[in-house]
């Protein structure tokens, strides 16, 4: 159902402030979209359909390489339809779906089933991450080449990590020769025995903690093996300052990239004191020093981009004591707004770097989108950077409502999302019309 195949009539977005750090565009101009691609960037462009974007910003569409759309198996929490609508509401035009579903995405038949459902249901360009090992059990490698033939884009150990360095190394070598990048969730389960970050807040609250080393040790292992095997490896949801420093060390020594999440950039473990299940997430929220270290790594480009780890959960899995709640937050719909409010408007990060980290860089990683250049796919996000809105469960498009930002007033909001030249999320109201 991805638009662009239907060949919509030309759309001109007029008078938007176009910002694309990738191509160096930064100013008010018009963009004409035709045949699903960016046809023209300039002044006084006309088209069959015109969208007056005066006062709005136009960015390359965001790409989220880490989303749990719970399909197959937990369609009560999210479907491809609702997940992609939620992504579109956050300005995302591309998404990578994680494999820890039920059944796990470890066989070609599950992949081909997802491919068909994506074609029917997805509003955005959804890619499939298959499992690195069968059942995500960390023992036997999956039939990666058959998974790739069925439509998998990459492989991942997400949700669990890979306990055995030997299995991970073989998996990297095999994925490398199969031409598949890896997304790795770095967590050592012999260390990660708690449910929150093992720090002062956990001690005060009496909640069992997992030390930061649970992430750092596994990150070091993954990076060392990536350097040795040459596998294209992406370290997802980096949440500690040390892991970010390890990534920095291995830049240029291995084919690696890394992301961090909006929540690790904006929230800290002081939320543990609420004792609310809502705030359980993996990797856990960290202290200020880690949040700031990861934020600095994002600023300098050591951490290449942002991914949300969009993780919908039914209310019965979150309205529980912290220790019993399922880990994970909704991510798509609040990602830009939270980061804009918390780190751009506070001067910690430039708007340009945020756009790069949400659009250009992950777009480069998936090999499509993230560039507002003539000939590229017409995947764009239109935002009102001055709109203030309060996050509440009633406004969520996701089927679930486990956002850590409930009740917060954020500044900046997605007004429209365009995939393949068509508006797949539209809050522009009467601004869109047909003109002679």
């Amino acid at each position, binding site marked *: 159902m991805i638009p662009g195949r239907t060949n919509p009539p030309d759309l001109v977005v007029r008078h938007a402030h176009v910002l694309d750090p990738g191509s160096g565009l930064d100013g008010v101009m018009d963009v004409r979209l035709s045949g699903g691609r960016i046809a023209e960037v300039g002044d006084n462009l006309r088209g069959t359909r015109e969208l007056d974007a005066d006062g709005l910003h136009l960015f390359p569409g965001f790409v989220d390489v880490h989303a749990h759309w719970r399909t197959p198996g937990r369609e009560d929490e999210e479907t491809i339809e609702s997940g992609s609508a939620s992504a579109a509401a956050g300005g995302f035009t591309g998404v990578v779906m994680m494999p820890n579903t039920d059944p796990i995405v470890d066989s070609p038949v599950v992949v081909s089933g997802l491919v068909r459902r994506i074609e029917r249901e997805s509003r955005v360009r959804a890619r499939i991450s298959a499992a690195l090992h069968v059942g995500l059990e960390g023992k*036997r490698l999956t*039939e990666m*080449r058959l998974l790739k033939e069925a439509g998998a884009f990459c492989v991942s150990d997400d949700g669990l990590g890979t306990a055995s360095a030997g299995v991970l190394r073989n998996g990297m070598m095999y994925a490398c020769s*199969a031409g598949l990048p890896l997304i790795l969730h770095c967590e050592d389960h012999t260390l990660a025995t708690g449910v929150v970050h093992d720090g002062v807040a956990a001690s005060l609250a009496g909640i069992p903690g997992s030390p930061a080393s649970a992430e750092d040790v596994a990150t070091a292992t993954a990076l060392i093996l990536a350097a040795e095997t040459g596998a294209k490896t992406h370290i997802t949801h980096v949440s500690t300052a040390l892991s970010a420093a390890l990534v920095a060390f291995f830049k240029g020594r291995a084919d690696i990239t890394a992301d961090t999440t909006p929540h690790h950039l904006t929230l800290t473990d002081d939320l543990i004191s609420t004792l609310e299940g809502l705030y359980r997430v993996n990797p856990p929220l960290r202290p200020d020093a880690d949040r700031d270290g990861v934020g600095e790594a994002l600023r300098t480009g050591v951490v290449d981009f942002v991914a949300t780890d969009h993780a919908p959960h039914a209310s019965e899995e979150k309205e529980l004591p912290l220790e019993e709640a399922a880990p994970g937050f909704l991510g798509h719909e609040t990602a830009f707004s939270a980061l804009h409010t918390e780190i751009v408007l506070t001067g910690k990060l430039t708007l340009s770097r945020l756009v790069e980290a949400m659009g250009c860089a992950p777009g480069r990683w998936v090999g499509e989108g993230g560039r507002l250049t003539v000939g590229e796919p017409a995947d764009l996000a239109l935002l009102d950077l001055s709109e203030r809105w309060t996050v509440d469960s009633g406004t969520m498009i996701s089927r679930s409502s486990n956002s850590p930002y409930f009740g917060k007033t954020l500044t900046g909001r997605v007004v429209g999302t365009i995939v393949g030249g068509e508006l797949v999320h539209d809050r522009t109201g009467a601004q869109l019309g047909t003109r002679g």
Partner: protein
Amino acid sequence: MGIKSFLSLEHTDRDELREILDLARAHEEGSVSQTLAGKTVCLAFFEASTRTAVSFELAARRCGADVISLSEQASAISKGESLVDTVVTLDRLGADAIVLRHPAAGAASLASRHTAAPVVNAGDGCGQHPTQALLDLYALSKALGGFDDLLGRRVAIIGDVLHSRVARSVIPAFTKAGMEVALVAPGTLLPRDAGAWGLPVLSSVDEALDWEADVLYALRLQRERMTGARIPSVGEYARFFGVARRHLRGGTLVMHPGPVNRGIEISGDVVLGDSSLVPNQVAAGVPVRSAVLTVATGAAQRVAA
């Protein structure tokens, strides 16, 4: 005088390869015989083997040698005797040649330093298997017309290169015979930095055909590596690295050192089909090993004279 161990083919040049193959043909045609009359050949096999052990024994007997067979179970090895002590014992008992199969790479080389008798490496761990490479050259050159017809031909070595002593011997053998060699394997079954060997590394039999391979040389996939650790499944392996009928174009030849896992390395209808040299490779075992034993014991000079 003139004895020569066969530990690897590292120091064997193209002319020597040709001489051994010529001598093998002479053995096959019956124009030489009894080259080992009065000699004692000791077969020391410390690892299971069918075709290698049998063909060495037949070769030695047909050349007129006395043959002593030693297996791990039926020898003092099972009592904990070291390889070196066993070799010294065989040496003092008067062996004129020791044929050694051992599970550890370098065993033949170690043995050769402790005996005056020539040592013929019949396979050492993941190290070398030089007589296999020689019989492969023999079978292939015979199928193509002659030794010089190997020049410029392309052979794709497919499968578990990492653990294969056959690969470590056939790659230099084919190269010295003037052939071009490519490796076809998943990354998990390739030696580290295989690209540094200067050979193309391909990732499926189809890619080998795109590379215009004349010969598809499939290696045995060892059972303990079949699932999980280094490859996901036999099915996926067979899909990308198994030689099937659809891969056979005019003149494409298929080889395998045996024993074949049918339907995995080579499909059942190809193993003994028209394109297959697998039976020819087995048949080459006796004449080639006769030639090797003849050269090793220094008897070749007498043949030449």
